[in-house]
């Protein structure tokens, strides 16, 4: 009886999974870690993983710190969240600390957390099989050639590697895969109007270059050259155009990095002067919603909301010509801006009105027509009239925003033949705007009748006309 009791205590409980094992290939051979089952799931002993990957484990109170050659993470028992720098990584199961004091982690610790700790490439190569590889160096030499209309930045790597060039809000990022980059930055001075500087970002395991855009940046082009193989990134300034006499004042934000415009720096007379807001007049900011990798409503590959919002903004700009209203748009190209950047521009421009352009979408095809949204009141005291919290900027303008929304809703309803009403919603792009502000969904991209209007040039022109007329009536 006694022996039976001992035997029962030692047996795993009913329903527990069979033990699994992980294989980790390290430079000195393949090592195996066996799992221990807890709550029906497989866990792996952290001290064994740490020994293989040369991590240091330090336990303080209920907190365990795992330190590698490149980074540190912290975790607590019973929580699936692992803290890394300022963010939390979510594991599939909570970290488990046995009563004996041993720490155990689920398998995805190896895939999600371990690569962040190591100065080497650590990846999953098959089911429950991982590989640790030291990284090969790639010496990348940069050369710069300044031309009248562009700057050519030439990347000459010692090893040919897949190179990814992507546009960010304030920079062009050039990243090299599979190798650790050892940079050799250029000595030739850069044209500061086009490129402020080239920064090497070593936070990523492989390393990447950020070409920080200058005030006259317009676009970039990338191409390859051979013998020796090299990648060229051309940074171009805007083509010079002459405007017809008597043309309307249509101002657009200088492409001097939207981020910087959105958050003007404080202090320093010279810098402050450069970022001085425009003189107060009748300024209106139009915000074409979405952009870049943020498509918005997408009923098909051809119908992307971001393209329709940009088209409508262009239509409004065209129809505003000859008008005394100074018109600003938050974006003129296919880039994604955060809601904060969009509302920052409205405030920086001292706008008298802000209109964020969108189109609706629903799996219910029957929904149609325009809907104008205004900010929902936030139940928080405003405090000092001189110091309004960012998220409460719209509070004082709600009545006037509603007035603008009513005019827009009425004109757009007449165009679409609908009787939709304005709607209150907590909208990130409207909440901080210190001016009458609305968000317009000018028809549903998912409704066939609305699509007909939106896809025809006349339809888009008429919507643009309704917005322009509404603004003029509101600002009169």
């Amino acid at each position, binding site marked *: 009886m006694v022996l039976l009791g001992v035997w029962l205590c030692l047996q795993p409980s009913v329903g527990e999974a069979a033990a699994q094992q992980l294989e980790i290939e390290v430079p000195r051979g393949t090592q195996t870690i066996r799992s221990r089952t807890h709550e029906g799931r497989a866990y792996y002993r952290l001290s064994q993983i740490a020994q293989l990957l040369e991590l240091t484990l330090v336990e303080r109170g209920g907190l365990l710190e795992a330190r590698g050659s490149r980074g540190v993470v912290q975790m607590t028992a019973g929580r699936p969240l692992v803290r890394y720098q300022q963010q939390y990584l979510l594991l599939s199961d909570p970290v488990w600390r*046995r009563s004996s004091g041993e720490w155990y982690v689920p398998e995805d610790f190896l895939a999600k957390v371990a690569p962040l700790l190591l100065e080497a490439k650590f990846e999953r190569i098959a089911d429950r099989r991982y590989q640790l590889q030291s990284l090969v160096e790639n010496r990348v030499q940069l050369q710069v050639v300044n031309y009248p209309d562009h700057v050519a930045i030439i990347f000459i790597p010692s090893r040919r590697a897949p190179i990814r060039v992507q546009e960010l809000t304030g920079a062009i990022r050039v990243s090299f895969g599979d190798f650790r980059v050892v940079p050799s930055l250029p000595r030739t001075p850069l044209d500061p109007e086009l490129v402020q500087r080239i920064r090497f970002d070593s936070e990523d395991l492989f390393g990447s270059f950020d070409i920080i855009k200058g005030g006259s940046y317009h676009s970039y082009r990338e191409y390859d050259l051979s013998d020796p193989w090299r990648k060229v990134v051309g940074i171009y300034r805007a083509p010079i155009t002459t405007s017809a006499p008597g043309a309307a004042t249509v101002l657009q934000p200088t492409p001097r990095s939207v981020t910087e415009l959105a958050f003007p720096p404080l202090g320093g007379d010279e810098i402050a002067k450069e970022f001085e807001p425009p003189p107060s007049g009748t300024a209106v900011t139009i915000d074409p919603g*979405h952009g870049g990798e943020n498509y918005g409503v997408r009923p098909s590959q051809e119908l992307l909301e971001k393209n329709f919002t940009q088209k409508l903004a262009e239509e409004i700009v065209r129809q505003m010509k000859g008008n005394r209203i100074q018109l600003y748009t938050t974006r003129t190209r296919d880039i994604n801006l955060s809601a904060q950047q969009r509302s920052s521009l409205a405030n920086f421009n001292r706008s008298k009105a802000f209109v964020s352009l*969108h189109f609706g979408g629903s799996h219910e095809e029957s*929904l149609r027509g325009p*809907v104008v949204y205004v900010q929902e009141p936030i139940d928080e005291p405003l405090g000092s009239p001189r110091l309004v919290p960012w998220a409460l900027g719209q509070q004082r303008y709600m009545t006037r925003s509603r007035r603008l929304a009513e005019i827009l809703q009425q004109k757009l309803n007449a165009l679409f033949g609908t009787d939709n009403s304005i*709607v209150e919603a*907590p909208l990130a792009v409207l909440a901080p705007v210190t001016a009458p502000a609305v968000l317009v969904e000018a028809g*549903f991209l998912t409704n066939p009748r609305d699509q007909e209007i939106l896809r025809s040039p006349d339809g888009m022109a008429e919507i643009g006309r309704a917005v322009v007329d509404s603004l003029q009536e509101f600002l009169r």
Partner: protein
Amino acid sequence: MTARLKIIVAVALVLVTLLIAFLYYRWEAEQRSNRSDLPALASLELEEQAAAETPLYQVNLYLYDPVSGKPGLGQLIQMSREIPGSESDELLGQQILNAVIRESPGILPPVARVLQVFLMEDGTAVVDLSRETAEQLSGGVTSELGILRALTRSLRENLPGVQRVRFLVDGEERHTLSGHVSLSQPFM
């Protein structure tokens, strides 16, 4: 039986008794620590396990119905459903919200998931939505707002201590869920 044999048997019995007591103590401690881990567990496996093992519990789900009002003014409709009960309110909340998601096909993508629900002492519930929920949410302002209100109402109605709901995406605070509706303030 000699006196010496009696002593050996007695010592052996004492040792076996001590061993049993020690093993029982360890087993009991492990069970206790497992029980205290329960509220924090986020895995779907646990949810499924709960579904198989526990009795059903009737809840009122609130679902967003886009066609019950004018465009932009979709209403919430109430629906009774039976879901597995749970000792933990946080796990129950997660099951309720995942049931709302399951009952909202078309509005939310099939991969949408509530990863975790935390209940704070001040009446705030923190709901951690999966990254796919935000990335693959189709529709405009109305759908985004509709689903957030449906999740909020379903949690408030079924867990009496919940007064407001804050949303995270993949464990992180975000300005918006899918580009429109602000997540910086809690939903009531």
